[in-house]
């Protein structure tokens, strides 16, 4: 007890010492040359998983005169001392503290710093962070998702019930049979190139679904199918897809895993490898279905030079012009995703396409309405469509 008392006395004596000595440190009570920041507000950062508090303040009145260079942001746990958290340049009025412990109360303080000195600390009220269960900034996205999904599911149901669905002709997909048939007649192989991205890319998945359909046809026609790939996982998936298709067609004996092989992960190394296969094996039909980048034209022009019938499909917009100029048929963007449904003719898959069209109609209506409203000076629809 005695010891404690002694230490308390010592603290009481020493505490004001810095003030007398003029070494105020972070508190900056000594040379308060600048006007303090007007108001500091600290709130739990909204719509996040917790662990973050956002601090806002109004600039020091001295900022207009150009006296403020930076702001220092301090933090103290309730009852604890203020510690420097970070600094931002003048003009900035916001700081996000990403290192808070959820549920712990903190007080924030902001101090203006300039060449002439600093301001006093302006403190916030106590605040604590917590995680949110719903990101309200994404309510609009949830609504859109629900509406589109509902439309797709509705039409899938309708199709399952036997409703008749119209689907427009996609020339590139109608030509799949012709291409495989031609390769068969000429006794030459079919080459399938599933893009250069991995299995986490939806375009590669779409490419795999088309490979399944093409493999089924090559199995029926007894034509060699070559699938050189750029990624190991894609190789495994492609082998599985082709194997299953050959099993389905009742021709497991015709399946050759060596025809679906890995070349390299390197973009242009892969392009060189595939070009080599084209020039050596002279396939009569080439499918380029998936996510392509700069190698697209290198592949498609080489394919053209050997006289193969070429059907390409990608959702990589910058590569579409190249495919359109060098290939016989090109599936543009969404057509790549529709291909599997179109080729299978299965009602449930076709139904989903119809639902997609409903989504498109909704978007078109919103866009037209948005353009009209914006031109009339009403911005609420634009604000409604903005996500966080």
């Amino acid at each position, binding site marked *: 007890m005695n010891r404690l008392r002694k230490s308390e006395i010592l603290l009481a004596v020493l505490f004001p010492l810095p003030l007398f000595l003029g070494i105020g440190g972070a508190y900056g009570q000594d040379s308060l040359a600048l006007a303090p920041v007007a108001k500091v507000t600290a709130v739990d950062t909204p719509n996040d998983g917790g662990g973050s508090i956002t601090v806002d303040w109004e600039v020091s009145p001295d900022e207009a005169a150009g006296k403020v260079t930076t702001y220092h942001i301090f933090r103290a746990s309730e009852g604890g001392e203020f510690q420097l958290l970070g600094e931002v340049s003048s003009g900035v009025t916001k700081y996000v503290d990403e290192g808070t412990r959820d549920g712990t109360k903190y007080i924030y303080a902001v101090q203006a710093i300039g060449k002439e000195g600093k301001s006093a600390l302006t403190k916030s009220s106590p605040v604590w962070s917590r995680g949110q269960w719903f990101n309200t900034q994404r309510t609009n996205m949830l609504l859109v998702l629900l509406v589109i999904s509902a439309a797709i599911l509705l039409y899938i149901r309708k199709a399952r019930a036997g409703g008749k669905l119209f689907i427009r002709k996609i020339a590139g997909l109608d030509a799949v049979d012709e291409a495989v048939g031609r390769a068969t007649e000429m006794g030459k192989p079919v080459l399938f190139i599933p893009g250069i991205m991995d299995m986490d890319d939806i375009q590669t998945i779409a490419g795999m679904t088309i490979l399944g359909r093409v493999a089924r046809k090559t199995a029926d026609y007894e034509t060699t199918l070559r699938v050189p790939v750029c990624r190991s996982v894609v190789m495994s998936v492609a082998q599985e897809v082709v194997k299953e298709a050959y099993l389905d067609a009742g021709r497991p004996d015709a399946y050759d895993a060596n025809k679906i092989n890995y070349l390299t992960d390197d973009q242009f190394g892969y392009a060189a490898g595939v070009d080599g296969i084209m020039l050596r094996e002279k396939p009569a039909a080439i499918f380029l279905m998936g996510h392509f980048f700069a190698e697209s034209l290198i592949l498609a022009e080489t394919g053209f030079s050997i006289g193969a019938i070429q059907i390409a499909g990608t959702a990589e917009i910058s590569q579409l012009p190249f495919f359109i100029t060098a290939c016989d048929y090109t599936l543009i963007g969404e057509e790549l995703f529709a291909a599997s449904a179109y080729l299978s003719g299965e009602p449930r898959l076709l139904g*989903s396409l119809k639902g997609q069209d409903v989504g498109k109609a909704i978007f078109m209506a919103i866009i037209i309405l948005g353009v009209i409203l914006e031109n009339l000076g009403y911005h609420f629809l634009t604000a409604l469509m903005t996500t966080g």
Partner: protein
Amino acid sequence: MRRQIPLAITLVVGLVMVVQYFVPHKPVGNLYDLFNTWAIVIFAFAIVLGVGNLIKIHGDRIYRLERGWGYSVLLLLGLTVMIITGIGWGIEPGTSFFYLYWHLYVPMSSTMFALLAFFIASASYRAFRARNFEAFLLLISAVLVMLGRVPMGKALWGQFPVIADWIMKVPNTAGQRAIMIGIALGVVSTSLRIILGIERAHLGGE
């Protein structure tokens, strides 16, 4: 069962990924990053599958002395040399791996990329023919943009760059947006079909 288990995993993971977009609270909110990290690890390890396949196919080709087996020897030699120099002496500037990278890999890759200049010329020569009205429009806009994007165009006529900028900013952006919206809807629809197990062709079945 061979089909059901992958379909069940797809359904659960797919739905969780949709939910995490709207729910930031832990542990749901962290799942996107977590799953993506897993994917990166899986893809990194899967390289073994690819290299194994490469060695098997080219090993077979050499063993059977098939046509062009010499190239297979070269390929396996390149693979071995790069792996040994990389693991043995590091990949920093100054190492033999770095030397091979700069003086073999870089020029070879650049050569492949440079082929584009030639292929663009031959493809546009062939494709830009005014066969009908649409093709005529395509041809005219291509020529205008090509002229407007280079200093020579400005030297010929000051308005070429202005027209090219307008084509890029207005019709190009409008078209790109339309395609982007279509693609986004296609992605939603395809994802839904896969999550619900309606689309199974990627699992090798109807």
